[in-house]
């Protein structure tokens, strides 16, 4: 390794620097020095810094100026750039240094992140320039997510703008705690200390409210150099750090060795006789002989060896940040997405999460939306069951809505199709964050605020036993696949009548239907539940769990339940996932009350039956279902025909006999 470094003054230290790019006309430069050792043999800390802020507040100019002030430009580079500008008939701008792409130069705005390296007194700095234009928020997030610290730039003349606030909010959501504020273009306000204080107070208040305390607020003129590397006479009234000094004081993000072990499983490899579980240690550390638990299943084992290449096995503790491979002392079913932890400090297993997210997709995120969730290496289908505090973080006073629009933020409750191991962001910043995908493209992300661990707080030693029958064997016999047919509607709408008729029809055709009537199950399995909103949710959850189990085993579970809550039904869909077929029995309320088969409407009107769904407004009609049936317009037989057609269309029922041999 190199041993060449000596303590240098700022400008000479940066002369040997490393920049990745500038203009692409063959003038881009040199090398980087991220691995330089100091004389005592330790490595210089590398800090990654993102510069964010409103469009045209001077990010690229500041970066260009920083390169110049730190002596980071190769000899003659500045003159060359000025010559190129002259050739194009444009006045020279510092930001030209960064405008690497032809398209950017044409449009005059930075559209993507570019990384630039240089050195300060004690740091190797990787500067990430992120676009300020609202259109490119996804690129700002891509850049900023890689940073250890941030510089938020504000135009002294324009002051705090919507994108300033939005970027501040996103720094908070991205978990970036080290933020330096730079008030730029001070020359445009005659270096007014009063104007500086005004902006400083406003932005500091905004950030502190989000839990981010600015490390410094610095008055500068990036164009002329005041405050960048020097406290010039223009800002004699300012006695804080310069930008370069502030950068030098930022710390690299530390690996989370001190937190509990989290090893999300990336894959299981069997390239030879070893069965290696591979992943990266996100926090904590592990060692051979450790007793570990695999979440969410709660299975327990010991680490037999830590495998590596070319030398293997390796001894000693493996800390956070390492990509490792381990073998276990027993054969267990482990899959990608599981999380390995120590037995006494395991994450919780859950199907319910609350998260604060930012949304980047064109279409707003709404309640009931089916999404793909990525939590570490786990991928799960999920449903958004509730949205709260959806706001535009750029607005000062913004009204919360029930949908999260593009580039907005909000809090969401998520119901997952399968149990996952989860931490909150406050417990573990690495594993307590998630990403949402729509149509195979990352559409948003955020922090896990809380984990609803359900009934099981402690990992139990549960080993689910899967049926030995294959689903295609069952399907061949029944001529249908498993499904959950969920009939929702007012009391008296005809759910049970339809359910019974459907059950008979499917059975007569050789199928295997199972009726799950809400009231019938309340007499047994659910007899501990009343009619509060909470109990109703739990009632629906249990129905959905039982129905899903039947469906996974090839039966068609027919659920007839009022299930008045949109959220609860979305959660049920989340549990049954692709097996779910919702039918809205949309018989008009007046007809239902007139039928009153169980006499409930009469009792409720008389005031002797409380909490009855039907005469109030507490039934939330579905907006998107597989089928809608009004039994006042359609005879039972015709309605069952319609259900059968829907089940055929959506791949549950089929006519042809499956050739089992073809699957072997």
């Amino acid at each position: 390794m190199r041993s060449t470094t000596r303590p240098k003054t700022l400008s000479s230290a940066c002369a040997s620097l490393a920049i990745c790019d500038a203009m692409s006309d063959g003038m881009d430069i040199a090398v980087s020095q991220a691995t330089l050792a100091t004389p005592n043999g330790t490595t210089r800390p590398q800090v990654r810094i993102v510069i964010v802020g409103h469009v045209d507040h001077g990010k690229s100019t500041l970066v260009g100026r920083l390169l110049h002030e730190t002596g980071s430009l190769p000899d003659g580079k500045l003159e060359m750039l000025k010559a190129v500008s002259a050739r194009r008939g444009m006045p020279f701008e510092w930001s030209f240094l960064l405008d690497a792409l032809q398209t950017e130069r044409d449009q005059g705005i930075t559209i993507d992140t570019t990384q630039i390296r240089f050195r300060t007194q004690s740091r190797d700095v990787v500067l990430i320039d992120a676009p300020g234009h609202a259109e490119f928020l996804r690129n700002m997030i891509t850049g900023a997510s890689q940073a250890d610290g941030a510089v938020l730039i504000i135009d002294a003349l324009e002051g705090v703008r919507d994108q300033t606030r939005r970027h501040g909010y996103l720094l908070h959501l991205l978990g970036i705690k080290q933020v330096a504020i730079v008030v730029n273009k001070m020359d445009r306000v005659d270096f007014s200390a009063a104007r500086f204080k005004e902006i400083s107070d406003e932005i500091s208040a905004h950030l502190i409210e989000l839990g981010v305390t600015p490390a410094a607020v610095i008055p500068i003129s990036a164009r002329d150099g005041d405050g960048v590397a020097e406290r010039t006479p223009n800002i004699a009234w300012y006695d804080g750090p310069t930008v370069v000094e502030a950068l030098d004081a930022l710390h690299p993000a530390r690996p989370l060795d001190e937190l509990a072990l989290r090893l999300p499983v990336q894959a299981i490899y069997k390239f030879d006789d070893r069965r290696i579980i591979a992943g990266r240690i996100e926090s904590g550390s592990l060692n051979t002989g450790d007793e570990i638990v695999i979440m969410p299943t709660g299975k327990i084992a010991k680490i037999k060896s830590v495998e590596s290449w070319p030398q293997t096995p390796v001894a000693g503790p493996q800390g956070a940040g390492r990509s490792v491979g381990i073998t276990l002392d027993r054969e267990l079913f482990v899959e990608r997405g599981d999380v390995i932890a120590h037995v006494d400090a395991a994450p919780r297993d859950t199907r319910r999460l609350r998260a604060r997210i930012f949304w980047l997709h064109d279409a707003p995120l709404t309640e009931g939306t089916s999404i793909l969730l990525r939590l570490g290496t786990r991928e799960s289908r999920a449903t958004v069951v509730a949205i709260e505090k959806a706001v535009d973080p750029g607005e000062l006073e913004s009204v919360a809505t029930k949908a999260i629009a593009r580039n907005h933020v909000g809090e969401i409750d998520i119901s997952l199709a399968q149990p996952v191991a989860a931490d909150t962001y406050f417990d573990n910043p690495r594993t307590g964050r998630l990403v949402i995908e729509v149509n195979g493209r990352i559409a948003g992300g955020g922090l896990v605020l809380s984990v609803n661990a359900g009934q099981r707080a402690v990992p139990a030693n549960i080993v689910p036993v899967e049926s030995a029958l294959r689903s295609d064997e069952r399907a061949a016999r029944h001529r249908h696949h498993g499904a959950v047919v969920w009939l929702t509607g007012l009391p008296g709408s005809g759910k049970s009548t339809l359910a019974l008729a459907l059950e008979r029809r499917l059975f007569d055709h050789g199928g295997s239907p199972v009726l799950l009537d809400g009231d019938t199950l309340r007499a047994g399995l659910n007899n501990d539940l009343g009619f509060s909103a909470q109990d109703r949710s739990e009632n629906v959850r249990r129905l959905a769990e039982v129905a899903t189990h039947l469906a996974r085993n090839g039966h068609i579970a027919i659920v007839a339940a009022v299930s008045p809550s949109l959220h609860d039904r979305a959660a049920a869909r989340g549990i049954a996932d692709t097996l779910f077929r919702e039918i809205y029995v949309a018989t008009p309320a007046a007809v239902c009350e007139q039928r009153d088969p169980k006499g409930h409407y009469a009792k409720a009107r008389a005031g002797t039956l409380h909490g009855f769904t039907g005469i109030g407004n507490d039934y939330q009609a579905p907006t998107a279902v597989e089928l809608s049936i009004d039994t006042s317009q359609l005879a039972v037989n015709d309605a069952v025909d319609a259900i059968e057609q829907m089940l055929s269309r959506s791949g549950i029922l089929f006519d042809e006999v499956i050739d089992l041999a073809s699957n072997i």
Partner: protein
Amino acid sequence: MDHLDELEAQSIYIFREAFARLKKLALLWSLGKDSNVMIWLARKAFFGKVPFPALHVDTGKKFPEMYAFREQYAKEWGLDLKIDYCPPIESIDPTLPPAARSAARKTEGLKLALAKYGFDGLIAGIRRDEEATRAKERVFSPRGTEGGWDVRDQPPEFWDQFNASPPPGAHLRVHPILHWTESDIWAYTQRENIPIIPLYLAQNGKRYRSLGDADITNPVASNAKTIEEILIELETSKEPERAGRALDHETEDAFERLRVAGYL
């Protein structure tokens, strides 16, 4: 963990994500220092095996030392080596400047290989610090069905969560060493004792910093005869790494045009 350990761990993570999430991967092996480091990292990620083919899209104009290296190490490293040839220069857009036109053969060769094998993921050893447009890249970079790169519509990528679902007919580029620098590559090559083509080391006051086609790649002035000396040289050099690559210097946007069309 030191800096090289961190880089290594991150690259291994990327390799394993690519292997878990894509169906048909190949690693683009250009025989240069970067792609040799990449193969080394793949063997680390998969405990000695490279579980996908190493694809050499051959222009037929590489240095003899490169071909010798390919034969020796494909065997020694147990690679599933696939060699595919580029179409002749006559079939390439004549409006491109000469060196860019020559390099564009590789883009076309790559397209042909993609169509032939149906890869949905190509692992490439590009680095952000090499060249301006490469600094814009994502780790998982979606390509169009024609192999093109839409720099204006790149999906967000953060927290090591990658967009790994190419639409049918399209593919992804995966860049496991995007975050490395030229110095990192050499320091790691030295630490891990990874073999290199001797052309990188100085002879008669010249060495190659970057290896491309023999006719459009020039050596730079250097006395660095060992990797250690290369590292010291890089510390003081202000020359760009690709200074010896003619195609980068023909017009301001030659390289960008190549990349948008699918060049590495």
